């Protein structure tokens, strides 16, 4: 008889964690890109030559979705789910679920705010094309925290794999 918590086995919890990381990161990226793209589209509608300089600003919130995706893939690979192993102990599965939370939530919030920051920074490019590099720095600062959250999630999962998957 497998141990369960709220009717979910260890593997279920691990999968839920991985799914949440991918879903929340994806939500953050979609909203962030939409927010930045609105302003960028307005600028490009008046000055199409700025498209190339504004594309990185628009695309930058998309990285959060990738971070969540990476976390989800790591859950599948590191804990054997991809190989069909479905017997992760409840304690391990729940800890994997917890390990997925930093990247999921931080990526959702930072993706949205990176989009808003990008929308503001696009105004700099609208006024002075030559400042496109400077404009890119502000949304990049928001990216830092998404990267840190991914690092924490990866380290936690590697530790859990060492502890439970011998």
């Amino acid at each position, binding site marked *: 008889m497998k141990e369960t918590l709220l009717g979910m086995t260890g593997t279920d919890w691990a999968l839920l964690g991985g799914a949440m990381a991918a879903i929340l990161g994806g939500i953050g990226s979609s909203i962030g890109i939409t927010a930045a793209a609105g*302003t960028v589209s307005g600028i490009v*509608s*008046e000055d199409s030559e700025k498209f190339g300089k504004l594309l990185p600003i628009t695309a930058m919130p998309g990285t959060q979705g990738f971070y969540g995706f990476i976390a989800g893939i790591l859950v599948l690979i590191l804990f054997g789910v991809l190989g069909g192993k479905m017997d992760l102990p409840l304690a391990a599965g729940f800890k994997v679920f917890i390990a997925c939370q930093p990247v999921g939530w931080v990526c959702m919030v930072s993706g949205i705010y990176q989009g808003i920051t990008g929308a*503001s920074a*696009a105004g700099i490019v609208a*006024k002075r094309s030559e400042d496109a590099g400077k404009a890119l720095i502000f949304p990049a600062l928001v990216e830092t925290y998404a990267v840190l959250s991914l690092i924490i999630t990866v380290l936690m999962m590697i530790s859990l794999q060492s502890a439970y998957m011998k």
Partner: protein
Amino acid sequence: MRASALISPRQTIRYGFAVGKVRVLETRAFGRATYERLLDAPTFAEQKRILSESPYGRYIEGTETPEDVERGLGEALDAFYGFLDESELPKPVVRFFRVRYDFANLKAALKARVVGVPVTSMLVGLGTLPAEEFLGHPTDLPEPFGSLAAGVEFSERDEGGVEGLAGIDMTVDRAMFAELKKCARTSRSEFLEGLARLYVDVANAKTLVRMRLKGASVTELPDVLVDGGSLTAKDVAELYYGSAADLAARLGSLTQLRGINVAEMADPSRLDVVADNVVVAYLRTARAVPVGPEPVIAYVLAREAEVMAVRVLLIGKLSGLDAGVLRARLRDLYE
């Protein structure tokens, strides 16, 4: 500024496109160099040539008389207001801009009846109501204009004749400021609410200085001051003592009129320009808002000021006014 206005992704998504356009269009607004060129242009034809590649080019092309210029610039202004509709700004925000012209048309219609002249040439087609509606009897206009016109006419009859055109100005202006305040409140834009209050503060400040220059008694003030500003009409009236220069200094020390040029305020020829500059300074604060209705509103108001400046320069040139006189009439720029 609401904190939510700064951080809401919904605001960013809703107004992002319009703000993006504004960020580019702002770079095409006239700077000092363009105004200097228009001032220094030897002829009206040269001014038209300078404007030919600007957004005003097609509206000014073919104009020869001040009336043509008025009409052309009116169409240009209408196009700028059209940007408010394109930007999908809330209806009360659009009304805030356009309803002022309804009140101007109402004033024209009421005054034309008092003076007994046709109103046709005085109407502008920038309001929420078509200008033709003001050709009929003012009391037949839709609300709130119909009842306002009825009130004005009733008070005139009550007083046994025409109280004066100034009375119409005061009554209609009061109603206009109240309507602007209502639009601003309904729009839920703190920026617009601040602007509505500032309009009243500036109007009251101008009235006080003019009354002081005329040597009017303090007992006349309640009839001419408007409520709805940052300060109540009673508070403003308490500043009314001493010379015009002293009064200007006291007004300039008010937070609401921060930055006003006190030295020039007591000069009747500069009063309007100085007061308008306070509004321009307020518009500049909209730049601090990354995304929201504020930058769009500020842009349209800046274009409105630009149209006024271009009108002064073109009609001034057609009327043979000296460049120095025209320069003195120019407002600060939203640069």
